């Protein structure tokens, strides 16, 4: 059960032990983490589950797909290097300790 840490804009952290197989988005919704809206439920169509990852974590995350890349241009909070849609991040053991920052603006 990898641990994922969600960091709010004010610095508050929520650490969750998450089953491999779910996604960073679903785990956040199930635990009621603030700021992950996820309107479309994981279809990569709404851009409201945006998170910032640390660019140095990129090699333990799947590459940004075409649909995700397109949606990242539609986020409410500015796109940065480590921007990801949390619905496109399936949890793997390699993600132990991953920290994701929740943007100030999600809609």
């Amino acid at each position, binding site marked *: 059960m990898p641990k994922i840490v969600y960091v709010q804009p004010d610095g508050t952290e929520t650490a969750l032990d998450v089953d491999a197989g779910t996604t960073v988005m679903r785990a956040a919704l199930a635990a009621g983490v603030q700021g992950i809206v*996820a*309107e*479309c*439920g994981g*279809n990569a169509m709404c851009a409201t589950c945006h998170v910032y990852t640390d660019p140095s974590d990129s090699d333990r995350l799947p590459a940004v797909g075409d649909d995700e890349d*397109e949606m990242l241009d*539609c986020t409410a909070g500015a796109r940065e290097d480590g921007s990801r849609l949390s619905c496109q991040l399936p949890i793997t053991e390699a993600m132990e300790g991953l920290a994701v920052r929740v943007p100030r603006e999600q*809609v």
Partner: protein
Amino acid sequence: MAQVIDDFARTIQLDELWSDPYPIYRTLRENQPVAWVPAANRYLLTRHSDIAYLEKHPEIFSAAETHSLMIRVMGLTMLRQDGADHLRERKAAEPALRPRMVKQRWTPAFQRIADELIDGFRDRGEADLFTEFAAPMAAKCLAAVLGLADVPAQDLQTWSQAMMDGTGNYADDPVVWQRAESAARGVERAVDAAIERLSAHPDDSVISAMLHAEDPLTPRQIRDNIKLFIGGGLNEPRDATTVGTYALLTHPEQRARVEADPSRFKDVFEETVRWVAPIGMYPRQTTMETELGGTVLPAGAKLGIVLASANRDESVFDNPDTFDIDRTGRVHLAFGGGPHFCLGTWTARAQVGAVALPTLFRRLPGLRLSGAEPVRWGGWVFRGLLNLPARWDV
């Protein structure tokens, strides 16, 4: 007390909901957020939090309603299926409706459509913008996106209305059934012609995407889903166009700011669909007994998900009845949520927020309500203006 509240839900009449549902929703939100409403023959869900919960639990709240009038009129569409079957049909259509495609391919086409319509009436200095602009604009944009560009806008409007009347024909009126059936046949003929053309010559349209998907849809699945698109993709952008225009015409201070900074039309669009949700209510059915908002729902219970009410929930939106383009960070539910999250969201944002509204205000200087006749509102399942008589300077 419980008795009194129960009595309130029982007294609700459909014609009251049709003329102004908002005061009724406020009372329901306060007192009985999940209420059995005999006139609607459903439990109505009116709180934002309950609806947001429901949209995240499709395994409990199914879209595959039994005895669905929508299925009777349109056949089995993506909107009345759950799980993998739903996703397969949705994914096939999706490439035509993703934001990049909308921006590069459809937005320029929408702009031409808007300009041509406005060219047709601008010199006259007055028009009913419902019949002369919003409705044909919505129909022509939809036709382009679907791959039915050669179908007259008037046919699409007639089919759309006839099918929607059918999906609401709880009174079992035979004339309504007859019209809905002939509309469905009309759509089928148009789709068959498009399939023939697009099989050999693919393009960027929805029908072409369905035909050439990795897991292609059958002609029957394409016909039935296009009935859904025509029934459900026309009224909403039309109504968002008239309501958004009306809102700016009646809020001069906000209008001035938007005209000074047209990038704000984006906010106008989002606030418009929050303020008056074009789809006010959509149906769901429980797959198991469950509790929501203090009410125990049996398995198989028919629900009405009142987006119009969620969007005016005072626990989420300050002064919820006020039109205010400066709202930030609050999630309106006008496009639904979860697996059936509106597939036309990006198309609608482009055709209404990026094209129809800015073009009207830019090209019709001094735009104002004509005052010759009052504007009229109507509807609760779908709600919007029924006319929009306007004048401008020529």
